[in-house]
């Protein structure tokens, strides 16, 4: 390996900054999974019968499913009996009514993560729901949102307060039998966020959820459900972190988005789960199902993701373009370093007439990591006038990493216009030398080149998070330059 490559590798070997553990009393159920665990979770959540029935159906079905093996990732089999399926900070047994009731240590944790839970969040104009291990601990700005008719609350609260909406929409985009991890989630999910934007309302602020895994040997299984009624708009962001641990932890979430006529949902993710150490020990298995249903005409769903964390990422935020003239978008930056693996991409299912989709995927691999883009563009019979544009670019840093592209296309309408562009480039000695010859130090040059590479995606993020994403990228690429 050349000296230059060594330098690049040293340079990307930055430190994970969210690896601390919060010492807090938790109510964690013993590891293991059977029907009684499913019943226990439902009982702890005081759920109505339909929820319990749904969970039990999911659990029964899950037991019949084989673990999926098609993704381009490698890991030892997961022992689902070793995981604890529920962990909550003790004080949350009676869910806190306001921030004052939240354990100060928890607030401190979110402070460390830079999440503005207090009212000063008003400055940022962001309403935050925070999920710690299995439960949601605080939602800010609930009152202000309620004035606009917006519901933004923990999932378990929605179960109590808005059961009719849940019964109507839960599982309507990702049915429990959809896939192995979604099915497991349906059986054991403990909390998450619920958003409802009524007809004609433009949500007055960005909504945001932060997820944090704290307890050892627990899995995190949250669900997010966002419903945007006719003509409404919402922009939503989720962020994720976890402590550093030697063993792997499972995160299997489900996100369902529903956009009715003329509605728009923008969903952005900044995923920074603990990626494991430089030798590939530990880290989060991030196996997530995200799907949006453009159910109404002229609706629009846009996914933006910046994936820098997790030992393994396996997710395909997708759009079902059911309504006529509906639009689906997917903008992704996936960064892998050391021994991280990512298999990520999207599915765009064109069903309505004159539907359009755009896919921009940027993969960055460093160290011995591997990034795969996997995408499906499907145009069903009757989806006349469908258009898709796909661009997948891969950037390699050093000479021991890998990038793969697996595009699938199934087109059943002859007038569909499908474009696919793909490039693979190395963050080359040429580009670095060029910048350095102009006087820009190597570390700054790498940041500049990587940020340039990701620009098309970053510009899709809400402003304040675009800055956060750039910083995050700089952190994951930070290190001593030789």
């Amino acid at each position, binding site marked *: 390996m050349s000296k*230059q490559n060594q330098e690049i590798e040293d340079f990307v070997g930055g430190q994970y900054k969210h690896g601390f553990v919060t010492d807090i009393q938790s109510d964690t159920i013993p590891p293991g999974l059977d029907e009684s665990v499913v019943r226990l979770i439902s009982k702890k959540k005081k759920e109505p019968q339909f929820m319990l029935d749904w969970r039990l159906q999911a659990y029964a079905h899950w037991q019949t499913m084989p673990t999926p093996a098609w993704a381009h990732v490698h890991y030892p089999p997961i022992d689902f009996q070793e995981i604890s399926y529920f962990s909550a900070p003790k004080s949350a047994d009676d869910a806190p009514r306001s921030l004052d009731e939240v354990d100060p240590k928890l607030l401190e944790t979110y402070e460390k993560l830079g999440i503005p839970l207090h009212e000063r969040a008003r400055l940022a104009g962001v309403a935050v729901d925070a999920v710690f291990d299995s439960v949601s601990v605080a939602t800010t700005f609930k009152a202000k949102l309620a004035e606009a008719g917006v519901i933004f609350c923990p999932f378990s609260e929605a179960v109590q307060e808005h059961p009719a909406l849940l019964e109507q929409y839960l599982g309507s985009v990702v049915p429990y039998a959809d896939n192995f991890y979604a099915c497991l989630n349906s059986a054991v999910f403990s909390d998450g966020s619920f958003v409802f934007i009524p007809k004609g309302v433009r949500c007055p602020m960005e909504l945001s959820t932060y997820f944090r895994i704290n307890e050892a040997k627990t899995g995190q299984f949250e669900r997010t459900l966002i419903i945007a009624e006719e003509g409404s708009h919402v922009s939503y962001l989720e962020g994720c972190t976890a402590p550093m641990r030697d063993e792997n932890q499972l995160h299997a979430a489900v996100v369902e988005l529903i956009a009715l006529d003329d509605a728009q949902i923008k969903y952005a993710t900044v995923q920074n789960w603990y990626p494991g150490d430089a030798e590939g020990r530990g880290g989060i298995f991030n196996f997530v199902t995200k799907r949006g249903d453009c159910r109404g005409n002229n609706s629009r769903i846009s996914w933006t993701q910046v994936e820098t964390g997790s030992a393994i990422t396996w997710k395909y935020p997708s759009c079902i373009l059911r309504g006529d003239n509906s639009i689906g978008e997917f903008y992704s930056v996936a960064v892998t370093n050391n021994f991280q693996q990512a298999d990520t991409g999207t599915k765009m299912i064109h069903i309505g007439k004159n539907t359009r989709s755009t896919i921009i995927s940027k993969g960055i691999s460093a160290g011995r990591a591997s990034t795969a883009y996997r995408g499906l563009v499907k145009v069903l019979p009757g989806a006349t006038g469908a258009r898709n544009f796909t661009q997948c670019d891969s950037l390699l840093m050093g000479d021991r990493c890998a990038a793969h592209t697996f595009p699938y296309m199934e087109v059943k309408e002859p007038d569909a216009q499908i474009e696919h562009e793909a490039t693979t480039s190395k963050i080359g000695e040429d580009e670095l030398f060029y910048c350095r010859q102009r006087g820009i130090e190597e570390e700054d040059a790498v940041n500049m080149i990587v940020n340039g590479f990701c620009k098309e995606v970053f510009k899709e993020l809400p402003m304040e998070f675009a800055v956060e994403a750039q910083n995050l990228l700089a952190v994951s690429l930070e290190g001593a330059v030789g």
Partner: protein
Amino acid sequence: MRKNNILLDINKLSVSIGDKPILRDLSLQVAAGEVHAIMGPNGSGKSTLAQVLAGRAGYEVSGEVRYLGEDILDFSPEERAWRGLFLAFQYPVEIPGVNNVYLLKAALNAQRKYRGEAPLDAFEFLTVIKEKMKLMRIDESFLNRSVNAGFSGGEKKRNEILQMVVLEPRLAVLDETDSGLDIDALKVVASGVNTMRDPERAIVLITHYQRLLDYIKPDKVHVLADGRIARSGGPELALELEEKGYDWLRDEAASA
């Protein structure tokens, strides 16, 4: 030539890649205020010389390169740049998504930082660059484009010279900046270089053809053949080469 005015002093420089020697015992002195042209056939080592001066990794290098009195061979590329050494690349790279102005401002401010000067803010910088762009006849749309992305060959070369006039180096090495230019672009590039002539500054033009020297009159011309300076002289040497080609020099070098 005053001895104490030597800006660049190359002494017995040998360069190889693996077992393949490229430059052998090359010596050259360039004084402040001078323009030198280095000519030679393809494969004679001209571009290697430019890359080694700028600090490109991957070569085995021996000998000495003194610039402003310091041996710079162990300096990183950016340390050389901060001291005012500039290379106009033969093949400027494209950096998608990175704005031209952003790169150039970062470069200028990095060099100002080394000199202990305050960084220019966006407004001050724009004032500087807009004036220089006029000189290089570069359209304002350039400001919002990515570094060299989608530029024609001529635009890339003009961009290199623009960077040079903004950064105002002490020593500028231009590696085949004239190749691939039509006559109008060549004139623009030459006028850019000519405005840079200064008693404090030296310019080294690496070129294959005499053509550029019609517009930029060099003080000295050197011919590189087989990794050595085969001959040095005044501007008339360039004309002689134009007439006779390089083969006679190569024969001479082989029999030497």
